[in-house]
């Protein structure tokens, strides 16, 4: 028999590390910030001859129906009924973490607690009486330190034991909420106990959720024969308790946690840790944002300047290959390989070093725990603007790729907050835009290239925040939901870990190069060389570019740029690939020089900004449709991005004209 084991816990307590420890060969992304796991992940392991299916659920603080990731976690436990639920608790923050334990016990789940980060708790001076705590909660507790794999064997032993004993012993509620609440719970249980719902879900849990007016459970009782009777009890609950039952229950849970911990936890004198020291400056009111700006600037400087000679090496390699292909007797084949594959795809591949270097920088910042601070300091600004602070985490994830960033919005409570974050996410500059920035900034801005690239990332953030504000004040009015963000401990990033994370992100670009970009290069070459023998300007690409060029003339874009932007709808890197092919077919080898001869720095900067802001790639559009579940909002996003890109382009062109660039 295969036992199903669900891993659950607050964000950033080490669930993914424990999952990787339990499942042989698992390499789930482990990052030092909350909200990485937005979908459940599965793996298998065998322990003492027992096969276990391990399911890693998204991090969650509670089990309400407000955020998508919370609902995923809750539905899995309620609907799938795993044999064991391993609740991973941050031992150094046990009080807040135990809240979720209470919710799991209400669900009558077969809980085993992994008291993780036990080493960190010890360092903080915590003394936890594990045996006493286990007895008070009525569940097994295993102290663990996932990063050093301490306690993993014991945890597996306990999981197997708990799985095998399930059903043999009836789980009794060890937590009670006082006479008044218990009476209300009992009244509801009495009403529903013979119904269909009580066969499927624990009646006590249903009763508590109904008292809390849980939307999902209220939906389940709609139309049932006892709906009216239940609503009467739910309505009178507020009068009986003197406050909102949800708040009363939350208070009760925290009271119980305090009572339990009073006897099983001894906190030593609070030590001033390295994390406290670093946070004093990293989240400092005055210095937090300048330090954030400095660190990001250093990252872009590293990505751009340190990669330059390596780009040259790859560029020369493809140049030699293109030269060699000129010897192919068949003229069409020679052009396809020389201009299309080596001139187009080869050109885009020269951007591998800066892309990987940027991802290395992001990985180091993420692994160290700094990115969570960046979200925290930006939250101050966003909160003042009436926006949801949690939105900034998906925005930061967008620096890698907008798709996982949009998926990360599932952790945002409140449909409007989530929709706003989804709508503005494509404005955050992903890795795919980087080749465009490097080509243009390197050509037009010389020693200021790093700053020009860096400015794009800030332009993206500023536009995203302003647009979010505009949406909040107009079509998506409302107050942001309250946001509590837990800051993880700082950790020294390891070379091995950061390189793996860089590879995980960078390999997406390589996969794209072998599929989309290769296909794009062949299509682009065909459209740029046919009708065969015609000038590029008269080719199909030229015709597409010329047809749309008048629309973009106010931005200074000619047919070449317009054509490259049209093809870049498939993937943003294709803009560079397209320019490479157009100029290669025209016989230009030094694209930078050709660009310099055709355009001025203002057009270059406008092109960078337009590439950043206009319609996202097809994969992102697909993700928007999936995450929003609406074509209306997907189309709205397409129009919004195009309009914003055009308006920002006009503003840059206008400023350029004032400075004398016409």
């Amino acid at each position, binding site marked *: 028999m295969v036992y199903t084991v669900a891993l659950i816990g607050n964000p950033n307590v080490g669930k993914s590390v424990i999952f990787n420890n339990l499942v042989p060969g698992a390499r789930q992304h482990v990052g030092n910030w909350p909200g990485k796991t937005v979908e459940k992940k599965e793996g298998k392991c065998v322990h003492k001859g027992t096969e276990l299916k391990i399911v890693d659920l998204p991090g969650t603080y509670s089990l309400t129906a407000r955020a998508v990731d919370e609902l995923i976690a809750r539905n899995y436990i309620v609907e799938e009924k795993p044999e064991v639920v391993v609740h991973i608790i941050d031992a150094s923050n046990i009080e807040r973490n135990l809240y979720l334990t209470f919710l799991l016990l209400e669900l009558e789940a077969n809980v085993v607690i992994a008291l993780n980060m036990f080493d960190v708790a010890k360092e903080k001076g915590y003394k936890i009486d594990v045996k006493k705590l286990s007895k008070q909660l009525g569940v097994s507790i295993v102290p663990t330190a996932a990063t050093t794999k301490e306690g993993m064997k014991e945890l597996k032993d306990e999981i197997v034991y708990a799985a095998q004993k399930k059903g043999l012993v009836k789980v009794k509620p060890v937590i009670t909420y006082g006479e008044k609440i218990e009476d209300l719970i009992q009244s509801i249980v009495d009403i529903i106990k013979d119904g269909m719902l009580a066969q499927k879900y624990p009646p006590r849990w249903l009763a508590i959720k109904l008292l809390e007016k849980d939307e999902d459970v209220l939906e389940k009782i709609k139309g049932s024969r006892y709906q009216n009777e239940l609503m009467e009890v739910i309505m009178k609950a507020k009068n009986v308790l003197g406050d909102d039952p949800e708040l009363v229950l939350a208070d009760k849970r925290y009271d119980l946690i305090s009572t339990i911990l009073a006897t099983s936890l001894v906190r030593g004198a609070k030590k001033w840790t390295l994390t406290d020291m670093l946070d*004093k400056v990293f989240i400092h009111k005055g210095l937090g944002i300048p330090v954030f700006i400095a660190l990001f600037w250093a990252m872009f400087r590293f990505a751009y300047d340190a990669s330059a000679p390596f780009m040259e090496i790859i560029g020369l390699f493809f140049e030699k290959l293109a030269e060699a292909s000129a010897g192919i007797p068949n003229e069409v084949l020679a052009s396809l390989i020389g201009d299309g594959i080596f001139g187009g795809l080869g050109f885009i591949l020269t951007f591998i070093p800066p892309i990987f270097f940027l991802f290395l920088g992001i990985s180091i910042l993420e692994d160290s725990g700094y990115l969570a601070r960046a979200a925290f300091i930006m939250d101050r600004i966003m909160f003042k603007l009436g926006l949801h602070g949690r939105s900034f985490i998906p925005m930061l994830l967008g620096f890698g790729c907008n798709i996982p960033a949009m998926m990360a919005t599932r952790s945002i409570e409140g449909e409007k907050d989530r929709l706003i974050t989804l709508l503005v996410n494509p404005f955050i500059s992903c890795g795919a835009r980087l080749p465009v920035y490097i080509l243009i900034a390197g050509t037009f801005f010389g020693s200021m290239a790093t700053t020009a690239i860096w400015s794009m990332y800030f332009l993206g953030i500023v536009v995203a925040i302003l647009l979010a504000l505009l949406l909040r004040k107009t079509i998506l009015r409302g107050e942001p939901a309250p946001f509590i963000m837990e800051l993880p401990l700082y950790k020294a990033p390891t070379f091995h870990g950061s390189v793996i994370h860089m590879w995980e992100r960078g390999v997406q670009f390589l996969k794209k190069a072998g599929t989309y970009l290769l296909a794009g290069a062949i299509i682009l070459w065909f459209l740029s060389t046919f009708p065969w023998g015609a000038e590029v300007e008269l080719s199909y690409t030229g015709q597409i570019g010329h047809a749309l060029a008048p629309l973009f003339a106010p931005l200074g874009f000619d047919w070449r740029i317009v054509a490259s932007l049209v093809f870049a709808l498939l993937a943003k890197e294709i803009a560079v690939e397209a320019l490479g092919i157009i100029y290669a077919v025209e016989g230009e080898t030094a694209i930078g020089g050709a660009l310099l001869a055709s355009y001025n720095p203002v057009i270059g900067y406008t092109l960078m900004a337009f590439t950043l802001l206009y319609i996202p790639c097809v994969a992102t559009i697909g993700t928007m449709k999936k995450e929003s579940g609406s074509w209306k909002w997907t189309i709205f996003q397409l129009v919004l991005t195009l309009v914003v890109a055009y308006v920002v382009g006009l503003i840059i062109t206008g400023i350029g004209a004032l400075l004398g660039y016409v």
Partner: protein
Amino acid sequence: MGFNKNVGKTIAVYSFVIGILYAIFGILEILVGWGDFVGTGVSFIQPIELAGVNVVPPDVFGGIMLLIIGAVYLTGVREQTKAEREGLSFLLVGSLLAAVFFMVYLVIMLANGVGYVFQFEDWLEWIWLDDLRPGIWLFLLALPGAYLAFTKKEWRE
């Protein structure tokens, strides 16, 4: 020895000197690079050379980053003078930022060295002294502070 008044004052003087040095060189980089930044080519001061080596590169944004590092060091001086352990945070983070920029500039220097070894067109006239920026050698002065901030655990008690 714990973080007492004497240690605090010594650390404060040290942070003040390092902070001022970062700030001065940051301002110099901005003033030298201003002409390139605004496109006029006319800066407030001319490039500063020592024995033919450009010791202050024209780099407005690089200068701003040095100013930020300087500001971090200087913000902690008051608390350090009062022997408040919170003041050590500024020495620690200032040193950390200085180290980040030192590493970045050093890696760029090494990468340029690769370009030179391969004799690529843009690197034909490159010499390593071109990349010896204030962000590199100022860190050598900041190194003792960084070492103390990270290793003196008793100061945090």
